């Protein structure tokens, strides 16, 4: 073991040492061999495989897509409803819930990444699923059904991110790890339409049933759990996106292009589950549960969530939808006396209250919103009838007549007003609509103590990680 252990006249020692050295060497060798460690797998989590070998794996993918879509839904409703002046989260623990949506967003704050990251992971999941199912041994019909489902959910994710980023644009995901340039809004909306259309084609080629099961939110208010029914949900989203393409791009395209888009929207609407005069609550819902590993509806907490007092003060007298709010404990935001409310929401009444993805009530009003843009006498009559139907059935309000509106904008505002109360605390569309129709400035300032220069934000910033990875401080889109 050492070079200098040979001492003169120490033969006995040498022998004994040699013996011990043998023992030590054997022990060493034995432990080296005996202890060759088996690899230790990840003991806590599965690793996602791109392959879909069987129905069980397929189910985890399909559920995973819905898990992803649901993850921040309540949070996004909160942030967009704050920006759209319907809600506050007055939370001593985190003043950013007020300071940012009504003042200025910071890329480093969670509001940016909560409304971004999960959607791209879900898009990646959908792309993986499509790749996996195509390479699998499932039947052609099943493959088509899965593609149709996956791409519809994928499109829905883009709707979420473009709703919060609008003209800033967002990147379009192509493959895992690829950082694509930021696409401007028109290209993004095009992409969403293409995804939905491709999904529609697949759903048409699918069999009678999905090869996986869907949660109760797809069957509780109507039936949307077969490809033939699910495609009506797909078309409902398509109608919305065509409308966006019509109104949102009207400045850069000619009037005829706008009309073309609105017509496409109406065609899609016809193929959706929209039913004039039909049950308002028919639609697709995300459900929540207190089971282990499941999610609860985060928008139930009367200690911090409040309705913006304008929801009450700007309502038409006798609107039955005001039952969605009631008087509770007063909350104020001492840093800005203008932020105060004692109105709590009643329509999210427990941690397991479902939240709609889209309902017939929204679709009826969406249809009215599209028809308004057609700007013809017959279509005006049509949208007025739809609006009066909602006024009557949802709000218990009397009918309006066209002559009562001084301008076309006044007509639009009536439609948007119905949307506000029908979708209150269940959708962020008030912000999206006001922004799209150029009415955002009319929402005014909420903060008075130190109002943001240039008004409150219309969009949420990019997450810091996205900016850092791109080496930029502000996103610039490529048309």
């Amino acid at each position, binding site marked *: 073991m*050492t070079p200098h*252990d040979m*001492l003169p006249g120490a033969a006995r020692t040498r022998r*004994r*040492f040699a013996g*011990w050295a043998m023992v030590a060497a054997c022990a060493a060798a034995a432990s*080296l061999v005996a202890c060759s*460690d088996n*690899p*230790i*797998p*990840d*003991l*806590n*989590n599965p*690793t*996602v495989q791109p392959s879909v070998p069987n129905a069980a794996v397929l189910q*985890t993918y399909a*559920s*995973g897509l819905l*898990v*992803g879509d649901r993850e921040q839904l309540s949070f996004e409703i909160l942030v967009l409803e704050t920006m759209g002046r319907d809600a506050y989260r007055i939370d001593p*623990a985190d*003043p950013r819930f007020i300071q940012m949506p009504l*003042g*200025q967003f*910071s*890329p*480093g*704050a969670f509001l940016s*990444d909560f409304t*971004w990251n999960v959607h*791209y*992971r879900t898009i*990646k*999941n959908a792309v993986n699923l499509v790749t996996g199912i195509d390479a699998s041994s499932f039947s052609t019909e099943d493959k088509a059904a899965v593609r149709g489902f996956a791409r519809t959910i994928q499109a829905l994710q883009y709707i979420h991110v473009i709703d919060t980023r609008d003209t800033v644009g*967002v990147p379009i*995901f192509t493959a895992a*790890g690829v950082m694509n340039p930021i696409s401007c809004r028109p290209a993004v909306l095009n992409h969403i339409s293409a995804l939905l259309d491709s999904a529609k084609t697949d759903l048409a080629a699918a069999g009678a049933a999905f090869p996986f*099961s869907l949660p109760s939110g797809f069957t509780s208010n109507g039936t949307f759990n077969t490809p033939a029914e699910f495609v009506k949900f797909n078309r409902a989203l398509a109608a919305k996106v065509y409308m966006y393409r019509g109104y949102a791009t009207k400045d850069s395209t000619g009037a005829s292009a706008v009309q073309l888009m609105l017509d496409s929207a109406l065609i899609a609407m016809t193929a959706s589950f929209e039913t004039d005069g039909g049950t308002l609550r028919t639609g697709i819902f995300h*459900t929540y*549960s*207190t*089971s*282990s590993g499941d999610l*609860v509806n985060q928008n139930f907490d009367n200690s911090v969530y409040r309705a913006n007092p304008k929801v009450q003060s700007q309502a038409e007298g006798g609107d039955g939808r005001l039952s969605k709010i009631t008087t*509770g*404990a*007063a*909350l104020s*935001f*001492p*840093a800005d006396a203008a932020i105060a409310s004692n109105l709590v929401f009643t329509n999210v009444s427990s941690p397991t209250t479902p939240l709609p993805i889209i309902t017939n009530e929204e679709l009826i009003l969406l249809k009215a919103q599209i028809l308004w843009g057609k700007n013809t006498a017959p279509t005006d009559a049509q949208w007025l009838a739809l609006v009066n139907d909602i006024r009557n059935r949802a709000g218990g309000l009397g009918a309006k007549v066209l002559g009562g509106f001084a301008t076309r904008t006044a007509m639009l505002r009536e439609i948007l007003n119905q949307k506000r109360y029908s979708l209150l605390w269940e959708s962020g569309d008030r912000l999206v609509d006001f922004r799209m129709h150029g009415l955002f400035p009319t929402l005014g300032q909420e903060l008075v*103590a*130190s109002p943001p220069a240039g008004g409150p934000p219309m969009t949420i910033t990019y997450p*810091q*990680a996205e900016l*850092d*990875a791109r*080496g930029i401080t502000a996103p610039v889109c490529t048309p």
Partner: protein
Amino acid sequence: MRVSRLVIPLLAVLVASSAALAQRRVVGRVADQGTGEPLPGASVVVVGTNIGAITGDNGAFVLRAPDGSIALLVRRIGYKRVNVTVGPSDSVVTVTMQRDVLQLETQVITGAATSVAKRNAANDVATVTADQLTNAPSPSIESALSGKIAGAQVIANSGAPGGGNQIRLRGVTSVFGSADPLYVVDGVIISNDAIQPGTNAITAAARSSNASNQDNGVNRIADLNPNDIESIEVLKGASASAIYGSKASNGVVIIRTKSGAGLGGTGKPVVDFIQRVGTRGLNRKNGLRKFKLADAYTRGTAVGLDSATILQSYNSCGGFCDYEEQLFGEHPLNYETNLSVRGANSGTSYFASLLNMYDGGIQQNTGYRKQGVRLNLTQTVTPKLSVQFNNNVVRSLTRRGISNNDNVNITPYFVMAFTPSFWDLRPKNGVYPTNPFVGNPGTNPFQNAALIQTPDEVWRLISAASATYSVFAHDRSSLSVKLDGGADRFSEQVNVVSPRTLYFEGNDGLPGTVTSLSATEILANWNLGAIHTWTPESRNWLATTSAGLQRAISERRSTNAVGRDVLLGQENVDRAAAISIFADHQKQRGLAAYAQEELLGRDERLLATVGLRAERNTANGDDGKYYTFPKASVSYRFLTPTLLNHWLLRVDEIKPRLAVGQSGNLPLPIEKYSPALTATYAGQNGVTPGRVLGDPNIKPETQTEIEGGFDASMFDGKASINFTLYQKTINDLILIFARAPSTGAEAQIRNGGSIRNRGAETMLAITPPTHLSFGGSAVQWISRTTFAKNVGIVTALPVPAYIVERDFTGQRVAFGAGYGIARLEKGKKVTQIVASCNNGAAVCVAGDAAPAFNMGFSNELNWKSWRASTVLDWQNGGSLVDVSQDVFDAFATSPDKADGGAARATENDGKGNHQYVYKAGFWKLRELSVAYTLPPNLVNTIFQGRAATARLEFSGRNLFTWSSYPGVDPEVSNFGNQSLSRFVDLAPFPPSRTFYFSLAASF
């Protein structure tokens, strides 16, 4: 002669009996130079031979010495070595020894199995001895190190009872890897993990209900009993810690517990008894805004209170309810009882101890209770074989309440921030007032403190065993083989109970929360090593060769069940209406082989060492690959150099030294995988891609350190100075770098990038000749001053600069650039803190988490039977992000501005919005103690002759803090121990000062 300290007594006994070479009999006596007391346990060796003896109870020894004039070397722990010449005709010697106040004789580790006296060491290894550790009682041993070691920054994560400290040795050595040094107790690698207690189930700090890094958990080194510790050695960087390979990148803390050895071998047992009684009190406050009556009306009316109610509350506290005083105003009765017995008898030596202590907190329902039993046993089985067993059983119960970040407005500082201080929250007739300032009924922090239970119980067993076999021990060579190992296993149980009657509990629709967290962890290691020594005929030098194998495994499992919607009085999680279960399992195995050669030559003046360690571990991407960690060092003692020897600067000896070495930091077992996320949706298991992409080829971070300096002893041993310069470079950093989330993952793990730490450390120890005397007795003054400065720079980064927001599991480690966050950037300080500036888009440097320098001042005065000591700790610079203040500002309740800070919340100083990044330097009086040793006749009277000595002592810890930092404490960390992001202050448990009165007696 120098060999492993464990082998010294054995070899001494052995060689003393090898009388064949000895020719004559020499008898002697060893005594303390100051007191004349006999010194048992001193080792007496004939220089140049293996002949030696150990003194007995009466300080006497007997030797069979060679003919002619001989030189005796006498050594004893705690004393300076003495060389005595014995003439050819002399047969009786008397040796007096001086106390080693400068610790030159302390043994320091040089290899896996070898050690050397500090005067020879080629590394700057810091040592702290028992008497320095227990001057002022501390709940956890790290706090007893504050201010005592140059290059060790010891900081408390909160003021909650029970511990929770971070030791950072020579700067930031990893970004995402383990932040803590390796702890080795009597050869067993022990766990310093912090199992988070899961208060997140009620605070929702991390927004899920599983335990989170914001739960203010205690790192488990707190379980050790400081009274059991004989010495602590701190290896500060790779040049010394290379012997521990890939676990040693953050340094190594080597703890030796007491033994019965050194008592002389035939003595009667020594019984030590310490009884302490003390208390705690709030040390420092954040301060609260005082409201004028008019402002109170405005605030009260805004939440719907009527004028009469406002006025009534305003008057009940005299206009100002000092919630901090009221909530943190407890003065618990704390105590500590420590009983130990040690002794040695013909081949057996033992140390046994019992501990029972309670350290109550300054908030109701908080406290720390610890009980421990230890038995250390060493037995010489045959003259060649000795075995040692060390066993320690500890039970601790920690209750720390709730503090830190919180998303449901219940932790004390959050409630204080949003409640204007005129609102009286104290219970009246058993009824807790509601708090309309956070809804109705809001949150009452007194109700929370009274009814929320957070018991965290740990049972722990640390066992070490070793067997040393002397294969041969000859005149000029020896070989011994040592097999040692042990295990550290603990189980931890936490049952958080938050009854449904608490005002906030109904907010989530599921009133009442109970949890059941159960964690077990085991670390085990064994080593097989051989040490061979050889010296040539000339005896000019000694070669020590050591080699061996080390096996280490670790495994941790935890399960946390969280139940909501629970009936009142129901503490079983199973009865909850909604139950969530979380589980975690980590495991790793490693094997290392090492070889080392040491040369001690030229009359013990030269020490040269080379060593190599090769190691594999299952946590690495390639789990069969061996990574190597070499080291080399050299030092030389120049005795009384003429150049440095005159009246101004009289240097006894000076030792330049140089050491270089490599160590590593293992990846976490999970980092080679890309785990998917799972969640259930309506009973179906749903899988989504993970946020973090792993690296299947992950390998350890490698640290290369070069350290050089000198140690000098001056003025006849009355002063010593250590000076060290070092550079440590960490390559192949394990980075979790941000990716564009739009690529489908938010972060990716890979090796890459480098950090370079450069620094200087000095320690000056002096015993100034005071010439002062009172009442005819001289005053002895011992003073130690440490200085350390470290600068860490990111010298390479393979990815664009990015902010460090989350750890490898995706848990947050910061609250975003809006407040202040770490950002890795090539060419910049690794500890820089950046914050949003220029209207939110860009980030600017706002501070530096690392201090400019640290200094520690320890002083001890001895006069007659009195001893007084102090430790003062100075941190110059360093920044903390005071997120707490933002919460106060947002609710206009900060004490320092007319508008309660509302203006600050939105102000922009032109450079950016980083108004919450504050300088966090401080001076702290860490320790103060005054002890009085009772005169022998009084001891005799009191104890009726049964006690040998008795001492009374008053001591305090963290008595004063001077800092410009506006928050409660410039040390706190919301995210607990962190490699990098350890600078966030958010609603911490405030610090306290502790006082103890003690009686210590020896029997």
